């Protein structure tokens, strides 16, 4: 009797355990859900960054370390002897089908960048180099004539023509195709019609965003016109001299005719015109993808290896272990637990260089004591009171690079010595002097604060910067923590925040305009400090309607000199990309968007 009694009791335990598991499973759904849905932190930087200010704490990206120094086209001059080994690289499972206009994250982006070639591609310094384009010309920055090189083919043998581009762009922009990168076509004339949706008709979003039923008034954009097989024109709604800079982004890639008949199948096994094509067993979901050099490729990004295999990882810890264990050749991000040691682990195979991520703190124009002449003096004093080298080396183990301007070193045209940039150099005596001058206009009272979100590892540097301000200016300064990035942004957006607050920006494309216009021009979407300068706006406008990218960049650099005087935001540092490679490979260089230039890598 005792036996059976016990067995019955055990059965009871088993049943409780069943219930326990079911509940535990549900419970863990809930937990991981709520901890992993939060705002825009960990979305790994794609070549398209954010249009919203990034929570740039996770800023990990790139730029050249061992610059080979040759002018713009590094690899065209003297290509190293090609190797035949397969380069093993880390990746993440692409979150969307591999369709250029529907891929907006780095997992799919890095693959598309290798199997497709756009009109231009970017070298390691972020400079655009003509790829399929023979020339991209404009006299007014608004109407572009694009001529294509002849002889380009997709890997299925189809010619790459002007229609390959125009059809692909029209497909990407049409609302009913629901492409995630559709908004990249916004500057083109006719975008409003193809993306038109009837407000108030469609389903209402969960967060209450008004419904909107896609009802395109046209199927194609009138701003795109095919002139011949090798030429097409693009009309923009306003002058944007840096439009050619954007054309290397994946949304602007061409598509073969085969794509349009069955886009779903195409997304699983895309056919491109790039240096590589999908080989081996194709796209093995959640596991890996094998890329092999494409025999039909004739462009400038000639593969120097026998192929690239991306193994998909969820975290960088396992990838880093594989790199150390010899199962992986290149890693494009160092996990937090190895940040302190990776430079010793990897020696000169470690990569730690600035990325296209700019970090700062903004002081609102309306804040008491921070407007007019007094404000200028105080802003400059605060900037001079911060020792950026000290903070980046001690707090960030040198994984940030002190800022020299308002953009990023990976942008073509960047300079570390723009006139006026000395306001970013530490000078306690001058800071004190300027602060005293401001006090003469109106005496300082109260406390200076910097708002930040405490969930992103910002407390340490905010405290350090506040202490420097406190010690060097003799005023009261401290951090103003918010529980989450979303809460901080809500207060910033509603202009409720009192004091300064941290801001960050990650570029969509390697252009100076993208770092300046959205942040500091009057009334712009991300101008959180409500900065307004007629001179700055004028230079932005002149730069945007310049005939060439270079002329535009010159104007934008001039505009930065105004910012150095007014300091609407205090530049702090650029986030670095961290990565590395194993001894099995050489010639590892990272692109402007923090992704290695895989085609250049040679296998030893």
């Amino acid at each position, binding site marked *: 009797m005792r036996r059976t009694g016990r067995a019955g009791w055990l059965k009871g335990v088993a049943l409780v355990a069943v219930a326990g598991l079911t509940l535990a*499973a549900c419970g863990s759904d809930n937990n991981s859900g709520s901890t992993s849905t939060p705002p825009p932190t960990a979305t790994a930087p794609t070549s398209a960054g954010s249009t919203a200010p990034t929570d740039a704490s996770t800023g990990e990206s790139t730029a050249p370390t061992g610059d080979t120094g040759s002018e713009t086209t590094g690899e065209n001059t003297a290509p190293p002897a090609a190797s035949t080994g397969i380069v093993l690289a880390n990746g993440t499972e692409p979150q969307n089908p591999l369709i250029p206009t529907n891929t907006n994250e780095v997992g799919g982006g890095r693959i598309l960048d290798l199997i497709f070639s756009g009109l231009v591609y970017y070298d390691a310094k972020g400079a655009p180099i003509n790829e399929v384009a023979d020339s991209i010309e404009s006299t007014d920055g608004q109407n572009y004539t694009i001529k294509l090189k002849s002889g380009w083919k997709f890997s299925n043998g189809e010619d790459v023509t002007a229609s390959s581009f125009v059809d692909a762009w029209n497909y990407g922009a049409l609302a009913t195709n629901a*492409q995630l990168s559709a908004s990249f076509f916004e500057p083109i004339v006719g975008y409003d019609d193809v993306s038109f949706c009837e407000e108030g008709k469609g389903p209402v979003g969960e967060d209450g965003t008004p419904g909107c039923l896609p009802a395109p008034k046209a199927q194609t954009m009138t701003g795109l016109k095919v002139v011949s097989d090798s030429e097409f024109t693009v009309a923009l709604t306003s002058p944007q001299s840096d439009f050619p800079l954007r054309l290397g982004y994946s949304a602007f890639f061409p598509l073969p005719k085969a794509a349009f008949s069955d886009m779903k199948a195409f997304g699983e096994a895309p056919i491109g015109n790039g240096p590589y094509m999908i080989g081996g067993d194709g796209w093995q979901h959640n596991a890996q993808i094998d890329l092999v050099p494409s025999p039909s490729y004739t462009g400038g990004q000639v593969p120097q290896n026998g192929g690239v295999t991306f193994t998909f990882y969820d975290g960088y810890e396992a990838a880093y272990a594989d790199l150390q264990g010899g199962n992986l050749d290149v890693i494009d991000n160092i996990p937090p637990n190895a940040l302190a040691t990776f430079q010793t682990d990897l020696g000169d195979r470690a990569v730690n260089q600035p990325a296209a991520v700019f970090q700062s703190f903004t002081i609102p124009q309306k804040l008491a004591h921070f407007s007019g002449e007094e404000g200028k003096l105080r802003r400059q004093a605060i900037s001079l009171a911060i020792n950026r080298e000290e903070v980046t080396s001690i707090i960030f183990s040198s994984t940030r690079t002190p800022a020299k301007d308002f953009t990023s070193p990976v942008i073509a045209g960047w300079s570390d010595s723009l006139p006026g940039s000395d306001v970013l150099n530490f000078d306690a005596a001058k800071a004190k002097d300027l602060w005293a001058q401001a006090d003469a206009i109106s005496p300082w009272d109260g406390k200076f604060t910097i708002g930040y979100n405490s969930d992103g590892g910002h407390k340490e540097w905010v405290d350090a910067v506040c202490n420097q301000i406190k010690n060097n200016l003799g005023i009261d300064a401290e951090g103003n923590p918010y529980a989450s990035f979303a809460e901080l942004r809500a207060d910033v957006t509603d202009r409720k925040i009192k004091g300064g607050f941290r801001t960050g920006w990650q570029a969509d494309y390697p252009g100076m305009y993208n770092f300046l216009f959205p942040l500091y021009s009057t009334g712009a979407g991300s101008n959180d400090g409500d900065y307004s300068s007629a001179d700055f706006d004028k230079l932005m406008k002149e730069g945007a309607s310049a005939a060439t990218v270079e002329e535009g960049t010159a104007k934008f650099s001039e505009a930065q000199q105004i910012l150095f005087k007014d300091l609407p935001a205090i530049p702090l540092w650029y986030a670095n990309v961290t990565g590395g490679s194993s001894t099995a490979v050489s010639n590892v260089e990272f692109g402007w968007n923090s992704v290695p230039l895989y085609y250049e890598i040679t296998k030893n």
Partner: protein
Amino acid sequence: MLWYIGRRLIQTIPVFIGATFLIYFLVFKLPGDPVAALFGDKPVNPAVAAQIRAEYHLDRPFIVQYLLYLKGTLHLDFGTSFATRRPAIDSISQAFPVTVKLGLMALAIEAVFGITLGVIAGLRKGGIFDSTILIASLVVIAVPVFVMGFILQFLVGIKLGWLSPTAGPNAPLKNLILPAIVLASLSMAYVIRLTRASVAENLSADFVRTATAKGLSRRRVNVVHVLRNSMIPVVTFLGADLGALMGGAIVTEGIFNVQGIGRLLYNSIRASDSVVVVGTVTLLVVVFLISNLLVDLLYAVLDPRIRYV
């Protein structure tokens, strides 16, 4: 017996419906707009978002969405994920075999080593071996699984280079040894302690004294009488553990890059991808129910006094 099994199988139907409903509801209630999340940190394009919502019924009320899903499953269509645009069954059927391999390896490790060590410790209760095992298992229970994972990965995988530090894409058995050991370690410690206590208790039971008094050899007493009777709690634990090993391997799968169910579940929850989450969890619940049924049937084998009618 058959009637009993049939009845148990019929019982899984309400559990199936209840589990799918509950999980679907929980995923539905996750904070944040999953379609907006597809755009990453870029502004949401309202026309595109509306198109995706309509295509995957995400604009419908919860109950309609759930009934549509249930209707699909009856036609053996387990839904298409709006996040990956792939049929959920594809993702699941790819990840499941890997997790089954890993789970069974871990189960084998914990059963073989756990029971062996536990029996020895139980038979030599109070000895040096027993004390050592008790302390060692206590240490294993106290150390979090990710610490164990990273240490073993670093020592065995990277420093010594005996085994691959990660499982990799096709997860060959050899590469799963390390994650299986880590996954098994905690349960193994419990199995050791459970077996030890059970054996020690049975050694002083009446029927053992009787058997010894009958003049049976010590070996026969231990194997036939003590061991067999000590196995019931251990088998219960192992059966319940199989489900936990499969569903609870998220941390281990992450450390060793095992492309299994845990990882799939984690990613799908992050994307609020209900069809994949529901499909995966339901599968785990079914595995759990079946392994429990097997455990119950094993009772009858271990203890002839238990009969199912």
